[in-house]
């Protein structure tokens, strides 16, 4: 039986006046790759930050292994964060450190292991992402794809239970994208991780996700396995997965009547 590592119940989140999520609920099963998709700007990254405790919801609970993240004390939250990890869209590598130092950083911070063991652990993580040969390079010397892989090695350095990927495919060439797609799936299965992938790259997500949530208009508009998502009749879901330029999500930003504005009768 699959248990849920993360459960989000009746979550509402407002940013100043704007509502981002209105009473949504979802669950992330243990050992699976769960994808969260949706158009740009609807707050997918915000959801990851809520799960990581970097933001607090206006209402609702976010349970990680039974712990309600928003209600944890600062110390307890930092303890829980040792069990989760996040791959940021930019990679967020420390620019003053080499690739090796970046991967060794979380191990050094949270353990008192001797340097010889740390070195072996870092080598193993870098070997997994294919960057053992690049360990002495600085982040500025890496390509976008390599930086993402180095950040992935750092993210798995402490063998977390949950790994959150924020737009892992954004700005990648087809080869890098293929490598990252394979790594997400392989790492999830080999290390027994639970993965949450936030993305709007439909084919890549469909190829690796076990379960998908599609978010738009402050709520979940569709969910299911990739096959179920393809079969959904919702026009909004269909527009999103087919990438149609017009539909329920209009091509034009709301504006006054075009003709009237051209004729000078608008605003």
């Amino acid at each position, binding site marked *: 039986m699959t248990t849920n590592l993360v459960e989000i119940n009746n979550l509402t989140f407002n940013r100043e006046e704007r509502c981002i999520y209105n009473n949504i609920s979802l669950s992330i099963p243990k050992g699976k790759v769960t994808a969260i998709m949706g158009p740009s700007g609807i707050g997918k990254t915000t959801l990851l*930050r809520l799960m*990581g405790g*970097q933001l607090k919801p206006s209402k609702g609970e976010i349970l990680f292994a039974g712990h309600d993240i928003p209600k944890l004390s600062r110390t307890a939250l*930092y*303890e829980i*964060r*040792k069990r*989760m*990890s*996040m791959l*940021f*869209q*930019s990679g*967020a*590598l*420390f*620019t003053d450190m080499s690739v090796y130092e970046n991967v060794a*950083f*979380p191990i050094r*911070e*949270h353990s008192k292991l001797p340097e010889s063991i740390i070195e072996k652990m870092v080598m193993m993580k870098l070997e997994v992402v294919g960057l053992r040969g690049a360990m002495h390079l600085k982040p500025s010397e890496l390509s976008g794809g390599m930086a993402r892989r180095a950040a992935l090695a750092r993210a798995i350095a402490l063998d977390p239970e949950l790994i959150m990927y924020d737009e892992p495919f954004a700005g990648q060439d087809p080869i890098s994208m293929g490598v990252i797609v394979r790594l997400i799936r392989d790492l999830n299965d080999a290390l027994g991780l639970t993965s949450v992938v936030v993305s709007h790259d439909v084919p890549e997500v469909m190829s690796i996700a076990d379960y998908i949530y599609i978010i738009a208009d402050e709520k979940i508009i569709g969910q299911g396995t990739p096959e179920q998502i393809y079969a959904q009749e919702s026009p909004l879901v269909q527009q999103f997965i087919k990438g149609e330029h017009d539909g329920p999500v209009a091509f034009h930003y709301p504006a006054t009547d075009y003709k009237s504005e051209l004729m000078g009768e608008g605003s």
Partner: protein
Amino acid sequence: MLEKIQGLGQLSISILGGLGRAVLILLSAIAHLPNFRKGFPLFVGQLYAIGVLSLIIIMVSGTFIGMVLALQGYTVLVDYGAEGSLGPMVALSLLRELGPVVTALLFAGRAGSALTAEIGLMKATEQLSSLEMMAVDPLRRVIAPRFWAGFFSMPLLAAIFSILGIFGAHLVGVEWLGVDRGTFWSVMQADVDLRDIINGTIKSLAFAFVVTWIAVYKGYNCIPTSEGISRATTSSVVQASLMVLGLDFILTAIMFT
């Protein structure tokens, strides 16, 4: 009218909110004195980046300001036959005022702006967020070592500034303009007492506290865009400089009146 009152209210809330965040950051930085195993190497690294790399501008400025002071002072004092007082005039100006104030202004421009920009860029490139997600407190890892390094390095820089200023004054006054060497040093020794040095050091510590606090706060609290970082860096230098000048007046009034 109602809109103006509303705007004033919003401005007050925003200023108070900013002040509250700045105090929280300061308290966290003070609470996180660098521990020996992990924090000390970070602290030493920042002492180098903030203190040692500021040495050149401090040394050159100190020497030239001392030389100019001696030149200007000599032209006035010689008319009254009082060129023997050149030594204490230069030394007191430097120790009481110019050393701490000019060092703080140069420090705000050289090291404070770099601190703000570095922390702001770390925020914009999600490095601070990634620290949080790795269960590493950015206030402890990033802010505290920088704050303490700034606090300890500025008084040392001010001391170097004053010493080189006096050396520059000696070069111009004694070696070039011919003031008697013995008079220059002995009158200086007689007129400058320990209180002047202590007061100058207290001023320097106060300026170090304020300039570094403003620099780290502005970086940590900036809007994480290129424009936001640019604004934060500018405002860090401007606010720190104004605070130094205001604080200098208050401290001078307390110490020397």
